[in-house]
Each structure stands twice: as structure tokens, then as C-alpha cells.
């Protein structure tokens, strides 16, 4: 047990040195870090949001909304197809998880089916089973109507691609805030986790996330006022929209002139005359053409700018806007103009988001926590070292050396893995150091027993190690179980604790058993030369 081949000594030393290399940048001042040779990894440990400050949001996507949008588009497609084929229908609407059409004349059925079949696409199939799946199923119902409904496979695919698009949009919006290393991740079926380090204004974060930001430009229906429409019925093709500031309603044509997805840019700026904050935008070519044509035909008439079904403003068209750019006015503040520009630039969300959990830590609390954690870790370690030396003398000193190597390795691995160190993680670190000496205590107590039983120093040390090791592994494994379950359970800070605790188990077994044994072996060689009868200093 106490014989170490040369290669083993080298491997152990190399591992410790590697840990030191990775851990070292954490305690170096910036200038030192920059002066390091290029092969040296320069990352410092990745601090969790609770230590460096920042915002964490858990959002849930409205998946039903995604399906709903699809059905709405499907309905429009079916209507368009039947109109193009000049097939009359008596009823067309969403029903039974799809779109149901009742034809006026039963003899049109075959023509209608042929037309509707053009909507069917293959959405992938299995190479192995040879089965092909389609996006839609078209069924004739017993009462003669036709049901066009999305297949399960297509719905799943839609939700998947919808979520991907959603995450992309969320990421674009957050990137626009100009923060460092934001993290946007899908979690589970319909959730998105957003972590923005160093950003402790959750209000602005929420402002750019909780709006779908579907922008559209509409013609104002001037045939009657909104209140008349409410009394006498809304004219077909029109709808009443509320305004964003709640000051009044507008009667608008439902079909949009141009939609927000034809925007290529949006920037906050100031109105040339009133110096009021506004949002300037630019359309792409087709958007510019549509907008130009519309404004040409409607000079002197108002048009409405609608965001998420609410009217931002309804300015009058003074002259045709042919260049494809314009500006949105609407009593903005500098901040709200900026936010709207961000939303428009990054595009509309395919569906709406609900914030389910929010945690924000300010930078000062974070740095206070780091400071507290550092002091606690330092004092905890020193106290444990003092106690170990008091209890086991020179061997206690050896154990303390191993403990320091343990700390360095743990920190080095955390740095190399870039897994987040959180405040509970620091607690895990301190706890690991406190419990790590358990392995040494087990070995040393065993050595004492063997010595009392009359064994020689070398025999006592050897059997102390060999008999304690199974117990050490046993007892550390149970903590590992707890750590793994915690990792699965937790998010953020708790996960940080679980990671530190679990890594600590491996570094502890390595240092408390292998490293300590190596140190003792070296000491034995030294003692052998000097003493006839080795007295174990324990």
C-alpha cells in the first residue's frame, strides 16, 4: 500500500498540477492573467446569478396559441381555395380540432376534395417502417361536410418548430438589450429559461418578453364611428380595436395593409418637429410597395398602427410614403420607444409567453454574498486545519495539505467545467472540506487502533489505509446519491450546490486517500533514514 511506482507518483503530481493550473486564474489579478502563457487556461470560475447578480425568468409558451394560429391560417387557406374554385359553401369554421366545411351543392364534393388535397403535404416518415405521415387528414363526415384536420404528427412538428422559432425570437430580443452572455434554453415541453447575468432590471426584461409584438398597419373604416358600430353591428370585414392608452376605440378594416414581418429595421429616434420620442422603421421591398400603394390611394385619410390588437396611433396620411420608411408616433417615452424598436426588430413571437417564475439578484447583494462566502470558506478551512493538526499532529498536517489540494482540485474542476458556482455551492464547498477530513479521520483512528494492538508503524499505517478505504467509499457514495437527486430536483442555486457536493466527493476520495498516502509514504522514507524505530506522529 505504501509503495508507489514512479509513474503513479508522476500521475498524482500531474493531476494536482493540472488542478492548480485551472484554479490559479481565480486568485490572480487581471494583469497577471493577461500575462499568462497562451497554453494556460484563463477562465475563472463561472459565478451563478445569485453571486454575480442578474435575472432569471421561467416562461411558459402558450402552446394552444400555436395550434390556434395554425388552425386560423388553415381556415383562411381552405376559404381561399374554395373561392378560387368557385365552390359555394354554407358553413365554414373551426370545429372538431380542424376546419369543417359544409358545401352548398353535394355534387361539388369531388372538386372540393381535389382542391383541398393540394394542402396536404408529407411531413416526414419513418425509413424503417416505410410509413409516411402527412400534415392534414381530410375526412368526409356522415352529414356530408368535410373536415380538414391537422394530424398528431404535424401538430407535434408544428409545436417543435414553433418553440424553436419562439426561442430564437426571445434570444434576439434579449441580445438587443446589450447584455453579456445571456442564456436562453428550452426546458421541458413548453418552457423557456432565460438567464441574464449582470442585468438587475427585471422590469425591462419583462417588458421586452411579455409582448407578442405583432405589428400591423390597417385602414380605418370611416363608414361609421366605433360607437355606432357597437350599436348597429360591425360592418363585415371590420373590427373594433381598443387603443393602447385606453383613450378610445377605433373601427378598422380587419385585413392588414402591411404586417410587421415585412419590417427590416426599427430604431428609436425623435420627431423632427415635436422632438417627441418616436420609432422609425423601414420596410422590405414588397412591404414598401404595398405601403406606398396604400398611402397613395389614401392621402388625407387616417391609417392605424396596431400592436398586439391594440391601436398605438392613427395618424393622417399627409403625403404618399413611397420610400418604404416611416415613423410611429404615440406618446412614447425614450424607454418605451426603445423597447418597441427592440420588439419590432426582433420580430413577433409565434405565440404568447407567461412569466411563471422570476428571480433577480442585484449586483451588490451578489458581491456581498461572494465576500461572505469567501470569509466563511477561509475561516472554516483554517479552523478544520487547526483541529486536524491538534488531533493528529504531523499526520494531521499531512491531512491538511491534502485538504488544500482538495480545495484546489475542486475549484480547478469547477473552473474547467464552467459549471456555475452559487452561494449554496460555496456552502457545499465548505461542507465538503469539513466532511473530507472524515476519510482521514477514519484512516488515522484505524492506525491508532492498530498501533495500540501492537503493530509496527509501517504495518499499522498499511492496514489503517486498506481497512478504511471500503468504509470511505461506502460513506461517500451515499452522499453522491443525495447529490445526484438534488441535481435532478433543483434549478439554479440548488443545482450549484449539488454539483459542488458531487465533484467534492471524487476529489475527496482522491486527496484524502491517494494524496495523503503518498505524502505519508514520502515521510516514511524520510523517517526510515533517520530513526531506527519509527514512531508514528499521530
Amino acid at each position: 500500500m505504501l509503495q508507489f511506482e514512479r509513474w503513479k507518483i508522476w500521475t498524482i503530481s500531474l493531476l494536482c498540477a493540472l488542478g492548480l493550473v485551472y484554479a490559479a486564474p481565480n486568485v490572480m489579478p487581471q494583469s497577471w492573467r493577461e500575462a499568462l502563457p497562451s497554453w494556460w487556461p484563463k477562465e475563472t470560475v463561472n459565478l451563478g446569478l445569485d453571486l454575480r447578480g442578474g435575472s432569471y425568468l421561467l416562461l411558459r409558451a402558450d402552446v394552444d396559441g400555436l395550434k390556434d394560429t395554425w388552425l386560423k391560417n388553415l381556415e383562411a387557406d381552405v376559404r381561399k381555395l374554395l373561392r378560387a374554385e368557385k365552390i359555394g359553401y354554407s358553413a365554414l369554421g373551426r370545429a372538431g380540432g380542424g376546419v369543417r366545411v359544409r358545401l352548398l351543392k353535394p355534387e361539388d364534393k369531388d372538386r372540393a376534395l381535389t382542391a383541398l388535397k393540394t394542402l396536404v403535404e408529407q411531413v416526414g416518415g419513418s425509413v424503417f417502417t416505410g410509413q409516411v405521415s402527412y400534415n392534414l387528414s381530410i375526412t368526409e363526415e356522415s352529414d356530408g361536410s368535410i373536415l380538414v384536420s391537422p394530424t398528431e404528427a404535424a401538430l407535434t412538428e408544428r409545436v417543435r418548430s414553433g418553440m424553436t422559432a419562439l426561442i430564437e425570437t426571445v434570444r434576439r430580443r434579449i441580445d438587443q438589450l446589450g447584455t453579456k452572455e445571456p442564456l436562453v434554453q428550452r426546458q421541458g415541453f413548453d418552457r423557456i429559461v432565460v438567464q441574464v447575468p449582470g442585468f438587475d432590471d427585471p422590469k425591462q426584461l419583462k417588458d421586452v418578453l411579455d409582448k407578442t409584438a405583432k405589428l400591423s398597419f390597417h385602414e380605418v373604416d370611416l363608414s361609421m364611428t366605433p360607437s355606432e358600430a357597437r350599436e348597429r353591428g360591425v360592418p363585415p370585414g371590420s373590427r373594433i380595436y381598443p387603443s393602447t392608452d385606453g383613450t378610445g376605440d377605433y373601427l378598422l378594416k380587419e385585413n392588414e395593409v402591411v404586417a410587421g414581418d415585412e419590417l427590416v429595421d426599427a430604431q428609436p429616434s425623435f420627431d423632427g418637429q415635436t422632438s417627441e420620442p418616436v420609432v422609425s422603421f423601414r420596410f422590405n421591398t414588397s412591404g414598401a410597395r404595398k405601403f406606398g400603394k396604400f398611402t397613395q390611394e389614401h392621402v388625407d385619410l387616417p391609417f392605424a398602427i396596431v400592436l398586439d390588437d391594440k391601436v398605438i396611433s392613427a395618424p393622417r396620411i399627409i403625403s404618399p410614403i413611397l420610400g418604404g420608411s416611416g415613423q410611429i408616433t404615440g406618446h412614447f417615452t425614450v424607454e418605451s420607444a426603445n423597447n418597441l424598436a427592440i420588439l419590432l426588430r426582433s420580430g413577433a413571437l409565434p405565440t404568447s409567453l407567461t412569466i411563471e417564475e422570476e428571480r433577480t439578484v442585484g449586483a451588490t447583494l451578489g458581491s456581498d454574498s461572494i465576500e461572505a462566502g469567501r470569509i466563511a470558506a477561509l475561516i472554516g478551512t483554517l479552523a478544520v486545519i487547526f483541529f486536524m493538526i491538534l488531533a493528529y499532529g504531523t499526520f494531521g498536517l499531512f491531512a491538511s495539505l491534502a485538504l488544500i489540494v482538495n480545495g484546489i482540485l475542486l475549484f480547478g474542476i469547477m473552473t474547467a467545467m464552467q459549471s456555475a458556482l452559487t452561494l449554496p455551492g460555496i456552502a457545499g464547498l465548505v461542507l465538503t472540506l469539513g466532511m473530507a477530513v472524515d476519510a482521514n479521520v477514519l484512516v488515522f483512528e484505524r492506525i491508532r487502533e492498530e498501533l495500540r494492538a501492537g503493530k509496527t508503524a509501517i504495518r499499522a499505517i498499511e492496514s489503517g489505509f486498506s481497512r478504511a478505504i471500503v468504509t470511505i467509499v461506502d460513506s461517500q457514495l451515499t452522499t453522491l446519491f443525495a447529490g445526484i437527486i438534488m441535481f435532478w430536483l433543483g434549478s439554479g442555486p440548488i443545482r450549484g450546490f449539488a454539483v459542488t457536493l458531487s465533484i467534492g466527493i471524487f476529489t475527496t476520495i482522491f486527496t484524502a486517500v491517494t494524496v495523503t498516502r503518498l505524502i505519508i509514504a514520502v515521510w516514511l522514507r524520510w523517517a526510515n533514514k533517520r530513526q531506527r524505530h519509527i514512531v508514528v506522529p499521530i
Partner: protein
Amino acid sequence: MLLNMKGFDFFPHDLNIDFMRVKGICFAASIVAIIASIGLFLTLGLNYGIDFKGGALIEVKTKAGPADLGDLRQRLGGLGLGSPQVQTFGAPDDVLIRIEEQPGGEAAQQAVIAKVQGALGDTVEYRRTEVVGPAVSSELRETGAIAVACSILAIIAYVWFRFEWQFAIGGTLALVHDVALTVGLFSLLQLEFDLPIVAALLTILGYSINDTVVVSDRIRENLRKYKKMPLAEVLNRSINETLSRTILTGGTTLIALIALLIFGGEVIRNFTLAMIWGVLVGTYSSIFVAAPVLDYLGVKRDWSGGNRAKGEGVAAGKA
């Protein structure tokens, strides 16, 4: 000199405390404590944090000297958010505001922060804001309970696999004891019980079974060594032999935890407190709960002969 220091042996090694003589009293006391804890849990309940109950938590630091709690309460009371809990947090100018879950789903929770910020304005620095909606809090309750249950099951399975079933029962009872007493303490003192406390509970489970495993290892070793010795005496001997280790390890762990408690800041105070308590009850339970169970249940003594039990081969060379 540095290389030949002798340690200070804290424990006289001819110690032979008769633990088994008091096992009846201690065991009874443990059972009473478990029942009392369950009683507290059922009557007083736990002071759940927002992780499990939903709602909002805001930590602020007042900019103008020590916080006037009465004034803060008054300003927040008029917001129609129920009755906000306002208390200092570690320092006189550091205040923790807790607001219960509002009716009206996820969006209503989000509105809380804006209202509080509107009421307090720039007079304070916002150090921390946390909002947990109803969906997340109910999930956390569920996963928290599952995690504790899974940990206990995993550990039982492990102990059962490594030892005889009597050891597994003793270990399980010790774990139940530790969890119950920790929950009982939190209920009695009405300390806030949130997700980090569940993490502390899981760590306590790991620590406690660690202790139990060390003692059990020694019991099994001595059972083989002293085949004719009465079981109670073997148990006593094993506990006494491992006592110095039990107390030293408990000691170093407690030292580290006390450093955390004093210097680690207010945010993890309850977490550390739970852990300290857990180390204490965990150490107690491996001596006074797990071992006596073996005495009550009895354990197979015949380790020799043709009936080579599965435990024996594995156990060879055990500390």
C-alpha cells in the same frame, strides 16, 4: 520537529460506555421526538417560503439609515396585496418583504413587484426580487417531496445491498428520525422552509447514513471477531471503538458549518442552521437509533460453516 508532532488524543481509548443500557430510554425518547415532530407538522405546519407557496419576496436596503418598519408596512399595506410581511434581514437597514400569492394567476404575481416598486420608489435599493407563480410552486412542492422520498429509497436500497436487512431497517429508522426532527425544528421555530432546506435535508440524509454505515461496518466486523459475545456487548464495543471518529468528524463538519453560520451571510442562514441541526441529530441517530434496532431485531451470528452469507465475502477487509 514539524515532521514529528504528536497529535492530541481527545478520547481515552479504554472507554466503554454502556450505550445499550440506556437504549430503552433513548429509543423511547427518539420515538416521542418523532411523534412530537409529526404533531408539530400537522398542527403548527411549516412556514413555507415562496418556493412552495408562491408569492413574492423582495429584499431592499434603505438608503437613509435604519429602516422604519412601521412606515414600510403602512406604505405597503395600502396596495391591496393582503398583509405584507416586513422584517429586517441581518442588518437594520436590510429589509425582507414577503407578499403572499395573489389571486388571479401568473400575471397577478408579476404585477406585485411593480406595485411595491411604485410604493417604495427610489428610497430603497432593490437587492433581490423573487416571484414564484402558482404553477411552479406546486411543481416544486411535488419534486421536493419526491426528491426526499427517492433519496431515502436509494439509500435504503444501498444499505440493504451492502448489509443485512436488519441494518437497513435500523438505517431507515435513523433517516426517518433525522428528517422528522429537522422538519419538527422548522415547524417549532417557524423558520422559513424553502427549496434550499430540502437540499439541506438531502445532505443530512447523506451525512447521517454515512455515520450509520461506519458504525455498521464496525458492528459487522466485530460480529465476526467475537462470535460468542452477546449482541448488546458487540454493539457497545463497536460504538465505543468508532466513537472518537464519530465525534471528530462531527466536530470538523460542525466547525465548517459554524463558520458558514457566522460569516456566510443572511441568505443561507436557515440552510446552514438546518445542516448543523442535521449533523447533531444524524450523529445521535446512528448511535441511539440505528444500533439499538439491531439489538431489538437480532442479527444473524453464524458467519461460519457452509452457509456463506452474501455479506461475508463483501465484508472482508472492512474498517
